[in-house]
């Protein structure tokens, strides 16, 4: 099988710029024998001079062979063959060619995401020699996103064609994609110095408008989605606060720290699972959910019994005392885990994303969190409306004295409700740990926002919190690109103050006789 072995000395590394004709002959042989063994490819490659290696890679890219995939991916990782430990050093040009060749091979894969990534790579690096191959794949591609990406790659290549008709077709093809790269490419074509044919230029103009429209849709959808995502996090942060604030009329300034505790519990669970049950690492966030709920709820109940209980009827003092608690919790976490962020890794099923449009990827983690937040709301609603505890909580919220007279154990209800609110924040912490940094200050930034949600939604109103959280989230994200994140925040604050002028009780408040 080692057909090439004898020939190798002839193109040994110490013979520079020898005989291109001989190389061509070799390449021809290579193309004639696509079934050549992988070990052969590897050895052949390493023996070649950089120039020859480049030609080799180009040839491989134009004529991909599934069998060579392992070799190429190993080479990209810096080794030579699949089971090879020899180090490989490549210069930048070769590295680029290698990426291109690898992408070309990956197009043959069965995995659509892999093909998509490959197609995107080819948009940047495809060579004219690959046109025929790309054309074949383009025609036979079943996945829409990959199809579009391939079309763009193909169009990119065809734009370099000398035939205006081919270029015109390419421009039209570009117009049908909604890819940001298509826009930059089309913009260059508007310049007469670049594109000589007037027909192609006008076609480019119409295509550009088409592309821009598609991009705008993608952008808006993207902003709306990140708004939803922010809203779901605000919701998780504010839900517990809404319960405790509605119940006790006090703001728990340590509520943000309950989020933080939930996130750190996730981290601890991750470390423990890694150490004792590495096989289950994929599912550690699921294990972290009950743990985080238990930790946060436990701390919350402890605080309620030891501190907050003694301050009922003095909301401002409670606010200060809970701030003190939050300082202590933050500093304790700092002493235990250090002031830096800890690393919480996404499991495989939460990483990556769903490509909806060429410029719109929805990360799985965020999709899952939106769903999770809605589940938590649903569960909370069920708990408050379908259980004895919920009935008691609602009774105490509406009229504490009357509830006490009816035999509701208000002290116990307070404690359990506080635990529930804190536990929900703990769940929120698990969610946060999957999309952001986990550090001691994590909770600090959420207390103001979640309070604004509570104010906007109306105290003790689940539906209000839901609308307010998503409304604030989306408004935030839509304003952000227009006027910047900081001004956006300030504007939203101003809007909320103005809103309270109109509806002091929030969006969803119960009307009634004001009781003094």
């Amino acid at each position, binding site marked *: 099988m080692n057909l090439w072995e004898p020939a190798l000395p002839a193109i040994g590394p110490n013979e520079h710029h020898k005989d291109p004709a001989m190389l061509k002959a070799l390449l021809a042989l290579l193309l004639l024998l696509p079934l050549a063994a992988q070990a052969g490819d590897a050895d052949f490659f390493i023996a070649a001079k950089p120039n020859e290696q480049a030609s080799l890679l180009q040839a491989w890219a134009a004529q991909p062979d599934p069998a060579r995939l392992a070799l190429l991916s190993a080479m990209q990782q810096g080794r030579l063959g699949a089971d090879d430990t020899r180090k490989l050093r490549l210069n930048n040009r070769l590295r680029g060619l290698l990426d291109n060749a690898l992408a070309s091979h990956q197009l043959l894969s069965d995995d659509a995401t892999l093909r998509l990534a490959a197609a995107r790579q080819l948009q940047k690096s495809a060579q004219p020699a690959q046109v025929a191959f790309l054309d074949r794949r383009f025609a036979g591609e079943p996945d829409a996103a990959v199809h579009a990406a391939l079309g763009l790659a193909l169009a990119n290549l065809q734009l370099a064609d000398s035939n205006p008709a081919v270029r015109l077709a390419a421009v039209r093809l570009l117009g049908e994609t909604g890819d940001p790269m298509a826009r930059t490419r089309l913009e260059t074509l508007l310049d007469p110095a670049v594109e000589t044919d007037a027909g192609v230029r006008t076609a480019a103009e119409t295509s550009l408008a088409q592309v821009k429209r598609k991009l705008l849709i993608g952008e808006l959808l993207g902003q709306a989605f990140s708004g939803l995502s922010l809203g779901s996090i605000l919701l998780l942060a504010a839900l517990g606060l809404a319960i405790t604030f509605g119940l006790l009329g006090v703001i728990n300034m340590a509520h943000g720290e309950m989020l933080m505790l939930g996130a750190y519990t996730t981290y601890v669970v991750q470390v423990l699972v890694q150490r004792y049950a590495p096989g289950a690492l994929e599912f550690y966030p699921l294990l972290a959910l009950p743990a985080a709920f238990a930790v946060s709820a436990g701390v919350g109940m402890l605080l309620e019994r030891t501190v907050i209980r003694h301050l009922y009827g003095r909301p401002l003092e409670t606010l200060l005392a809970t701030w003190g608690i939050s300082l202590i919790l933050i500093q304790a976490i700092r002493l235990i885990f250090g002031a830096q962020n800890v690393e919480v890794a996404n499991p495989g099923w939460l990483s990556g994303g769903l490509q909806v449009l060429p410029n719109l990827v929805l990360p799985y983690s965020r999709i899952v969190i939106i769903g999770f937040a809605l589940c938590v709301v649903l569960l909370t609603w069920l708990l408050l409306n379908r259980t004895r505890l919920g009935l008691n909580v609602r009774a105490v919220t509406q009229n504490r004295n009357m509830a006490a007279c009816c035999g509701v154990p208000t002290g116990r209800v307070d404690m359990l409700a506080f635990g529930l609110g804190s536990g929900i924040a703990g769940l929120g912490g698990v969610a946060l740990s999957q999309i952001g940094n986990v550090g001691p200050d994590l909770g600090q930034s959420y207390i103001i926002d979640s309070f604004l949600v509570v104010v906007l939604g109306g105290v003790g109103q689940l539906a209000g919190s839901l609308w307010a959280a998503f409304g604030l989230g989306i408004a935030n994200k839509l304003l952000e690109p227009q006027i910047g994140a900081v001004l956006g925040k300030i504007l939203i604050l101003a809007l909320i103050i103005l809103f309270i002028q109109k509806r002091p009780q929030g969006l969803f408040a*119960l009307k009634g*006789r*004001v009781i003094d």
Partner: protein
Amino acid sequence: MRTVPLPVVHPEFMLEPIIDGAGRDAIGLGQLRQPGLDVRHGTVLTLEDISVSFDGFKALNALNLYIGVGELRCIIGPNGAGKTTLMDVITGKTRPSTGKAWFGDTLDLTRMSEVEIAQSGIGRKFQKPTVFEALTVYENLELAQKTDKSVWASLRARLSGEQRDRIDEVLGTIRLEASQHRLAGLLSHGQKQFLEIGMLLMQDPQLLLLDEPVAGMTDAETAFTAELFKSLAGKHSLMVVEHDMGFVGSIADHVTVLHQGSVLAEGSLEQVQADDRVIEVYLGR
């Protein structure tokens, strides 16, 4: 033919100019006219077709109520009849969804803020006695006193001898001279009730709204309060919400029965007590 347009007469020009407080009003009901409030038609409070609803529940339903100048009116009615909501509407705390509310003949209560209503001469005593607990009895009365209540005036305010006399007089009326330098928070429930009534007196309002003024008072205190109210009537108009029928009987010549947000019956206490509908919803059974 030319038509000569009639000159537009501003309503205010149609009023008799008030030279001083001594002028009698046009209809001649014998009431002294207070500057600032026009009560020429003899009613100090006019409520017509007032409705208030809270999320579908009608707390007041097309209510009509007229209180004459110098009248002492008692409002009775079962719980939830809308008595406190009625007071909230008059004092501007709750806005009616429909209806007209006039104070005197010219002041539209539905368009005034709570503060404006209070300044125009409506005083209110709450169901639960509310006084300024961190201030002394004397200071409570001082704050209530009818005077310029703007920020600047408060910054420079000094009590004049006349004002001191007035405070002392009210202290005497409500029998709190001995505790004038105690903190109001330390008073007994009944004393707080009297202090709040005293604060209303200091405000010198045209119309006093009193929500259960004798709750928590001893019999002697109740009897004293009844005397006090009767002496106030004539100079002031009073609207008293009370459950204590004995008290109502001892003060009122005119009683209004509220039921489900509207007026069920009106008349003397004997009349309404004899009314079948009233007996059915409230007194009898």
